[in-house]
């Protein structure tokens, strides 16, 4: 077919415009879903979510921050096994409100379990944990033997 029906210029196929449209769509998708944990409809991932975490390191401590909104202090389980930190918990929807007149439910409920490899071994007995405004903050003191050692070498 050599004859192409005439269309106004703005309707001509422009490969770059399509690319741009795809990119916009991708950006929109990332915006709406990346920050939200565990897409509910995502088959295998259904019922699972995992909090976003930050890990910081200093000379004496390791600090871990995790976003875990809407939980109670005693519902979060923190444990240390060697150099692995395990965060566990279950976000429960209150029973009394479970069936009652929900118009919209977007918030995510369910259990999470996250194991984090720490940059060095920590003293599990001295871990300081706090939970405020939905953020879990842990300060984990490093074990004496895993702290960086400074050796002074004399130059002869």
């Amino acid at each position, binding site marked *: 077919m050599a004859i192409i029906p005439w269309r106004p210029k703005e309707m001509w196929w422009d490969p770059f415009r399509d690319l741009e449209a795809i990119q916009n769509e991708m950006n929109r998708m990332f915006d709406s879903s990346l*920050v939200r944990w565990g897409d509910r409809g995502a088959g295998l991932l259904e019922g699972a979510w995992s909090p976003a975490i*930050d890990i910081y390191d*200093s000379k004496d401590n390791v600090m871990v921050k995790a976003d875990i909104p809407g939980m109670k202090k005693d519902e979060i389980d923190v444990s240390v096994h060697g150099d692995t930190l395990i965060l566990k918990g279950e976000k429960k929807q209150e029973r009394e409100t479970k069936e009652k007149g929900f118009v919209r439910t977007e918030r995510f409920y369910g259990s999470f379990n996250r194991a984090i490899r720490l940059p060095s071994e920590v003293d599990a007995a001295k871990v300081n944990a706090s939970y405020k405004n939905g*953020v879990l903050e842990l300060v984990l003191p490093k074990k004496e033997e895993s702290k960086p050692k400074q050796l002074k070498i004399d130059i002869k």
Partner: protein
Amino acid sequence: MALIKRQRQEETQPRVIQPLVNIREEDKEVILEAEMVGLTKDGISLDLKGNELTLRGKSGRADDVIPKGYTVVHKERCPLEYVRTFVLGEEIDKSKIDAQYEGGILKVKLTKSEAAQPKKIEIKD
């Protein structure tokens, strides 16, 4: 290109997202719970314009900055800004809006006006 530009932007300014919400309707009120992690009470604002209620929240500076003396090993959390607007129905009494922030959840209580509340009708003998 736009994606790359966007990422660079994020390092300096917070990413704007819509908070996830649960909305529940009861006899006398409508309860809206929005997930807004790591804010302080001062960083949250609720604005009512006509019948549009806008929730806004900006995470405090302190939480976005790397703690003093620490270096980053791994980072997933990013500075966030929450914005979401809801259109309130006629039955909501706009002078009675109540909000509370606890554990990363903003709970907004919208009371229904007298006329919209269910009334029990007594049966006379």
